[in-house]
């Protein structure tokens, strides 16, 4: 599917390009913008970004695959990211992880068939003092209990 930035985003791109002395430096912000618009980074998105900042498609692909937050596939409408790193582990992070897995009936990296939910086991998100935690899309849910996880999932149904 062809991808073109919206007019509004093209204006934002002009602003972004002014922040850096090279066009290439705008690569990460442009990928963020494209992902917000398109939901994920497709081959067409990469082509579009590459032509705007005048770098090769390979360079764009290299960056997309390096950073875990750029998704190359459509995630669920509600993307669950559960932290299981040390501080969360010590406060039951794996209980939360296993609970979410069984509730959503998907494994790490999968999307439910109705495209509503997706799941990712993530590394430390900087909520160690309010562990265990998970993020859904861009929101953090901290100091979780299993009941709260149930409520959160229920609220998205």
């Amino acid at each position: 599917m062809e991808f073109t930035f919206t007019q509004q985003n093209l204006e934002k791109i002009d602003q972004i390009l002014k922040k850096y002395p090279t066009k290439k430096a705008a690569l990460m912000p442009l990928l963020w913008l494209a992902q917000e618009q398109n939901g994920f980074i497709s081959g067409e998105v990469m082509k579009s970004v590459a032509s705007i900042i005048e770098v090769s498609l390979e360079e764009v692909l290299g960056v997309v695959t390096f950073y875990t937050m750029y998704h190359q596939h459509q995630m669920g409408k509600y993307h669950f990211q559960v932290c299981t790193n040390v501080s969360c582990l010590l406060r039951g992070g794996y209980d939360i992880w296993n609970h979410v897995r069984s509730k959503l009936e998907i494994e790490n990296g999968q999307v439910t068939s109705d495209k509503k939910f997706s799941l990712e086991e993530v590394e430390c998100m900087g909520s160690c003092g309010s562990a265990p935690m998970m993020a859904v899309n861009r929101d953090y849910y901290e100091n979780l209990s299993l009941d709260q996880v149930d409520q959160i999932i229920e609220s998205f149904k």
Partner: protein
Amino acid sequence: MEKIVLPEIKDLHLIDVYLRNGGFTAVKKAFSQSTDDIIDQVKKSGLRGRGGAAFSAGLKWSFMPKTTDKPKYLCINGDECEPGSFKDRQIFEFNPHQLIEGILITSYAIGAKVAYVYIRGEYHKWIRLFENALADAYAHGFVGEKMKETFATDFFCDIYVHKGAGAYICGEESALMNSIEGKRGYPRVKPPFPAQNGLWGNPTTINNIETITNVPPIINKGWEWFSKIGEPKHPGTILFGVSGHVNKPGVYELPSGTLLTDIIYSYAGGVPGNKKILCVIPGGSSMPPLRGDQLDGVKMDAESLRTVGSAIGTGGIIVMDEDTDLVKVLARIAKFYHHESCGQCTPCREGTGWLQKILERILDGNGSLSDIDLLIAVASNIEGNTICALGEAAAWPVKFMVQRFRDYFEKRVSNEMNIPVANKVHSMRNTAIPLADIKN
């Protein structure tokens, strides 16, 4: 007790409140002094980097060339990906203008016209909070070209936010610069150091968020005042992030040199169920762990921790009680570093995977006594053989945990130990404010 970085003033994140409390007076004062004077004051204050290496901030600034035709840059490191570390987000949320003021003073001191604030991609909420504060500062004429008018000076500087996208390695200063340049976050070989050859080959200084937030009070109240707080060799306050098995986890701003046991028992409320402490990692997951019976008298500053065989790192204190499964913890830490290795250097790329594999083997009950020495051997072959410090970050927790808890690991591989039960969820309070509730 005086708080420098996170003073307890209600709504300090609002520019009006910040101004009422002496905001942007330090930068005014700084502009009336020479750049050498500023660098000298920060050097004398003894301010050391809060990002992990605890290097003298003033000394770092003094490495920037005085005479050069090249543009100079300042990078502020808010990547904050170290497990156990959650302090920078407090600054973005509760005291962003002091950070902005610190950036202005630092930019002036080193001669940078542009400062990039690198914030980890997961911090959508804190990026928005900081960008809102920055927009207010611009609107008041404190940042950007309007500064010339506001402060009646020739100097001006722009501040831009660069959002990361989920790579721990970008907290390493040269990887951070590559990331800003639009490349993979690969650390660079040093030398040349950033002060000579940084962003786009130009002189660049990289400082941690917390370090820079300390600068305005130093300029306002003087270096003598700052140098007398806490331990003389590592003065000031430190944001200690306490997590794991404590009753009141959170960020505590305390003078350097505060006793580790005081932080755990007095401030963080002790261990739930009054259990004994098995292990503490004092500075974020990459620092050498300490045994529970090693903690008496340990002071939290760079020099004191070095003498007990650990390091201050980012001040992230992770507490583990006597029922913790250390093998599980260490295997999880190893998995993290394997995941986050950028893949440039063979010892790190391969070694971190081996460490994870061996530890997961032990965790599954299939370990042998020889695995213990194998872990130390693999870790020792990573350490010192890589471009950046992620090698040490991956090797240290394994090497020191295995050495300091050898008895534990020996019992575990010989199946002479009851495997501790996993820690169950114990919830404290609910603090999350939805992103949608913050104005855009």
